[in-house]
């Protein structure tokens, strides 16, 4: 069975998380992705954990491998004059070129969309950066934590009496991949229908704002600013993260309807609350939610978080233990879904990445090659087999420092 995107060719200059995570999705489903990096300035995610063995190292790069598994890693120094012809040959090969440099950088190298379309008229090019290709803050650089801060994701995350907590990590870097991948696929559909390529300008901040839609409309329509509310919810109560037995152990519980409320009262041994008018409806529970925290926490404190999850879920109450990152590896659901995929690695023997986050019934995902994307692993394959370069030509490129 051919893979879904067999024959789709992507030349990928993106780096860090948001860009590479999107072409990772397409690679999982069969696109051929040539991932260009340079040894003159390694991708930032090769120098940030998680690291294999827990120690920093360019080839201990768990985060980089997870973002780039299944691609063809090659090293090319774009700033070298003689890299130019190699890049242009790769553009002629590609259906899609992706880049996430700061705006104008590709133009400075002569690789902007207007230049590339002169050699490949139907090329699709995705340019993605934090704030978009135009506007007074176009050159505002940074990672997804900064886009998240400036786009309003930190302010509603935390406690009313404390500084903002902010969502974990480079948050908008985890939203943008869905939109980058979707945008590339939509442009491929447009090309299929019309023969026409195009340039996509995807601002990570603008894409991510889709995920704040209700709060943004609450401001533009009602003039309200949604701020920090801890773990409260505007629609549901009780709704919180409650202490479980043990040190720093927690269970999340969210009651969304009356049936779940009735069930919760039984599980926590307070059947009388089920008949208490103060909590009889969703509106009533929201109004009186302060009174619910103690009876729930008194019960959760006496239970192991996994046991609490099991007991609550057995009665159809939405609940989950908060496993640590190390414990998530043993999550029976993630294991069942084969979320973790082993790849071969020349130094470590094997390394582990996440698999596709969804399943196709007929053309399933796979990590092409089954090997970690180590530095320059596919230089020879790309230059000899894809571009058909001679041995002499490749020797010249090495001597000119192009393959660095």
């Amino acid at each position: 069975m051919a893979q879904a995107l067999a024959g789709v060719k992507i030349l990928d200059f993106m780096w860090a998380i948001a860009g590479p995570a999107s072409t990772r999705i397409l690679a999982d489903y069969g696109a051929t992705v040539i991932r260009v990096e340079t040894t003159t300035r390694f991708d930032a995610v090769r120098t940030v954990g998680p690291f294999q063995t827990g120690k920093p190292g360019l080839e201990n790069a768990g985060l980089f491998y997870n973002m780039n598994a299944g691609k063809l890693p090659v090293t090319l120094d774009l700033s070298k004059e003689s890299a130019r012809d190699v890049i242009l040959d790769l553009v002629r090969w590609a259906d899609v070129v992706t880049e996430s440099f700061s705006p104008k950088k590709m133009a400075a190298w002569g690789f902007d969309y207007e230049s590339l379309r002169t050699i490949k008229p139907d090329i699709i090019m995705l340019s993605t950066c934090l704030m978009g290709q135009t506007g007074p803050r176009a050159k505002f650089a940074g990672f997804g934590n900064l886009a998240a801060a400036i786009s309003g994701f930190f302010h509603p995350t935390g406690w009313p009496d404390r500084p903002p907590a902010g969502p974990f990590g480079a948050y908008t870097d985890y939203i943008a991949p869905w939109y980058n991948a979707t945008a590339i696929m939509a442009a491929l559909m447009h090309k299929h229908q019309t023969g026409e390529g195009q340039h996509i300008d995807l601002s990570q901040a603008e894409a991510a704002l889709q995920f704040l839609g209700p709060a943004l409309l609450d401001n533009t329509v009602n003039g309200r600013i949604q701020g920090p509310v801890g773990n409260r919810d505007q629609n549901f109560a009780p709704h919180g993260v409650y202490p479980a037995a043990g040190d720093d152990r927690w269970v999340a519980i969210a009651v969304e309807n009356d049936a779940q409320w009735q069930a919760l009262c039984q599980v926590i041994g307070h059947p009388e609350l089920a008949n208490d008018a103060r909590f009889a409806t969703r509106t009533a529970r929201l109004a009186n939610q302060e009174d619910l925290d103690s009876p729930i926490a008194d019960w959760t404190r006496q239970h192991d978080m996994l046991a609490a999850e099991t007991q609550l879920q057995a009665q159809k109450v939405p609940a989950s233990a908060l496993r640590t990152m190390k414990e998530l590896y043993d999550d029976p659901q993630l294991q069942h879904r084969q979320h973790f995929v082993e790849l071969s690695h020349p130094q470590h023997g094997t390394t582990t990445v996440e698999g596709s986050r969804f399943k196709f019934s007929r053309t399933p995902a796979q990590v092409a090659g089954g090997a970690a994307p180590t530095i320059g692993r596919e230089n020879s394959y790309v230059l000899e087999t894809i571009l058909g370069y001679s041995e002499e030509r490749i020797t010249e490129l090495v001597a000119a420092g192009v393959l660095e």
Partner: protein
Amino acid sequence: MLNPYRVLDLTTECGLLSGQILGDLGADVIKVEPPGGAAARQLGPFYKDESDPNGSLYWWAYNRNKRSITLDIKTEQGKTTLRRLAKSAHFFIESDMPGTLAELGLGYADLAAENPALIYVSITPFGQDGPKASYADSDLVLMAAAGPLILTGDDDRPPVRLSVPQAYPHAGAAAAAAALIALYESLQSGQGQHVDISAQQAVAQATQSTLLATPLGEADSQRMSGGAKLGNIPIRLIWPAKDGHVAITYLFGSAVAHFTQRFMNWICEEGICDAATRDTDWVGYGAYLFGGSQEAIDDYMGLTRIVEKFTTTKTKAELLQGALDRGLLIAPITTSEEVVASPQLAAREYWQPVEHPELGQTFTYPGPFAKFSASPITYRRRPPTVGEHNTEIYIDELGFTAQQLADLTTRGIV
């Protein structure tokens, strides 16, 4: 881009975004709601804070570029009508618990039998199979089950959620990407398939790969006030300014050392650090810090105190201007109101006016997720009112008579 394609959107609040993305890209999206309207219309916030199925801003946020019909798919006539619609549809998107629609004879196998090219997308909390497939869920529960929740918040309080729901948007956006991959494949094969989206797995992306700690042999990451512990390393991300807070990427190593150098130059110019500190090898400092020795962590904590001393002398606006002028990794922590007033978003004409004739008003909506040079996204339809397109779809397109539609309405099927 997707103008030739029709989407039947049966999703609950768990999948609304997927149909909207396909609608933004030009597809004809028909939102199929139970008579009386989808349960998601009960979710606030509400227009003028008045609970009304046509005034839910949660609904507005995720249902533009869709048409709405009402149909009770639990009735025989409802099932027949839905099957008829599915015969000519390209996508069928649903977010009921696994097996629910199959019990009604509306599962993938049932619909594919009559339309083999149909792409049937199921969005569920934990996927179609596995020990938690039938778990009760919510946004908070999924943020817990997928990992991001335990990584977020002050270390002396419970982990804390981003209070605007995120789990279902992740699942919905993943579903849109997956649906288009399956569509592309169907152009070659003429065959559809069943696409199975797990919200847990989609949201797990937001752990920044730290959930690989066990197989990689890495330390656990943890929440921390003002930042997070990546493995053993306490990374400070949030700093106080004179008038609020800013986020700063204060990291080291070859990819970011030049940003940190420029930042330290500024701090030094203002007399808050000495030249020797300023001239640290910021490339090598990355491996030093991530090496994880106590000495390195203590040294880094000293640096964060210097940065804090500096940021508290400046306003958020001064720090942002400095970041723009000097090329630094600093962003102000911004409210929704400030986002709406952003000069960058204004310059890019991001915000879109959307007319609501039923309310006699025009509202400002978040704009398209990307700018396409050849086939731009347009907002053709405001989010539909309950069953707004019943006549248009049942009579004009399916060929029901007015009498038939009236009959279905009387019987509570439409």
